[in-house]
């Protein structure tokens, strides 16, 4: 079975001699939910631009489901759906027309496009606004419109460049559910995001891009396993004593009811049992730090 996306030695140097990508190799399996992370200017959007034919590559090879972009450009284009980072629709066009036109560019007739647009707009909760000009939509609605547009030709690979930027929590969670559904249906999803929680929650595999180079490509599970240390904030039922007893893990009193606990070798239940044995009953536990964020910062700072 060919890879959903296979990139070999991809290099991009802009006219001002700025090298955005340097001999990048990347392989993404079919059906994967893949995170492509990197700081601003790492080269993520450039890479997506090349995959989606919006930018010319300087050298290298891009293959989508076994088809070489250089020799089977139109077939490759049909396989990909893109939700870009920046709004890139005509703001003076009605929403439904944007979807129908996009379908038309892929050779889908108007009646079929209309039916598909209805399904997607209803799913994106934009159906009531179908006759409105795109400029009248809120930021979150514009993102959902771009997601619907990316899906109008039923692509096999969906590329999402910062899909949750400017989207409120409720809509973001509903978008996540929808993306999981799409992935379960067999669509390969490639995601770039600044919300590392989003990548951690949705993606199975991950690559980290830094200064135009892939510095890490592995599974999310393996990557997170590398972060042995967990920092938790615990809230106690009763007020805490001024001086806490000694434990095998690091503990610090924050205020009368909360403490910070750093676990390296213990798991959470061991820590809770140890606290309970000392008469400290915990009613609420939350993570003080996103593990992926810790690792991301560690990897990118090491690379620099």
């Amino acid at each position, binding site marked *: 079975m060919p890879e959903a996306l296979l990139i070999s030695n991809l290099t991009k140097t*802009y*006219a001002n001699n700025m090298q955005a990508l340097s001999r990048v190799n990347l392989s993404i399996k079919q059906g994967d939910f893949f995170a492509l992370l990197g700081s601003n200017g790492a080269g993520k959007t450039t890479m997506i631009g090349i995959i*989606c*034919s*919006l*930018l*010319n590559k300087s050298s290298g090879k891009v293959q989508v489901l076994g088809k070489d972009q250089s020799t089977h*450009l*139109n*077939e490759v*284009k*049909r396989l*990909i759906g*893109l939700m*870009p980072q*920046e*709004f*890139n*629709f*005509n*703001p*003076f*066009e009605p929403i439904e*027309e*944007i979807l*129908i*036109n*996009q379908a*038309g*560019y*892929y*050779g*889908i*007739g108007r009646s079929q496009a209309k039916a598909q647009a209805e399904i997607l707009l209803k799913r994106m909760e934009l159906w009531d606004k179908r006759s409105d000009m795109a400029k009248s939509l809120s930021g979150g609605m514009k993102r959902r419109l771009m997601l619907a*547009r990316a899906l109008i030709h039923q692509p096999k690979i969906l590329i999402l460049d910062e899909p949750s930027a400017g989207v409120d929590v409720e809509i973001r969670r509903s978008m996540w559910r929808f993306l999981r559904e799409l992935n379960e249906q067999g669509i390969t999803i490639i995601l770039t995001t600044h919300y590392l929680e989003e990548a951690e929650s949705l993606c199975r595999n991950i690559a980290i891009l830094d200064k135009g180079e892939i510095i890490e490509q592995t599974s999310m599970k393996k990557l997170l396993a590398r972060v042995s240390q967990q920092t938790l904030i615990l809230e106690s039922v009763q007020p805490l004593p001024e001086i806490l007893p000694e434990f095998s893990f690091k503990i610090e009193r924050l205020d009368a009811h909360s403490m910070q606990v750093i676990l390296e070798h213990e798991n959470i239940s061991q820590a809770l049992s140890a606290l309970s044995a000392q008469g400290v009953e915990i009613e609420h536990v939350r993570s003080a730090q996103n593990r992926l964020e810790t690792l991301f910062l560690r990897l990118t700072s090491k690379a620099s």
Partner: protein
Amino acid sequence: MWIAYKTIVVKEILRFSRIWVQTIFPPIITTSLYLLIFGGLMGERIGDMQGVDYLHFIIPGIILMTVIQNSYANTVSSFFLAKFNHSIEELLISPVSYWVILMGYVSGGIARGFTVGLGVFVAVSFFVELQIYSVLIVLITFLLTAILFSLAGFINAVFAQSFDDISIVPTFILMPMTYLGGMFYSIEILPEFWQDLSKFNPIYYMVDSFRMGFLGSSTTDFWVSMAVLFSMIVVLAIVAFYLLKKGVNIKT
């Protein structure tokens, strides 16, 4: 390919129709005023030109002027705006060939040129009894002129980096060429040197053959005009296609 082409054309027609107050109505009003003032009021004092009264003489030129301006304006503004708001990416990521994109935009320009030209024709026919010598010549000249200026507008839009850049060419090149192309006068009244110089202006050939379609007389052989128009279309189409394929100012 056909569906993609049809989609672009319908989108273009809907675009200029939605803003008819800016795109269709003003040129009809402006050109009707031209005809009223230059043809109706001053025409009687000017007398006959090329064997007909001045009002009937300038009508074809004025209709063609609206076709030129509107075909050009449609592609230049539409394609530049698509670049400006990045909606051109909708086409670039899709499996639409560059020829289809080009033909779609050019057809949009033809559609607007036809709509406005027809609007002027209808408006004028309320006041003047119009006669057409050859509908075929009128339609062929209209079509080739609209194609030529839609292509020119497209090339302008590719190079344009700002809104100023899409008004410079129409103001400083297109307008003088149109006015000096025999729209208001027959080049026969000019001294020989200026007559010869006028023949380097492609608009002269369009106006001359369009006028022939209405009046039945021209100052240049019809087939020469057609050859000039056709050759220019071929050159501009190749240039526009090359720019689009190379992604000049569209892809980096």
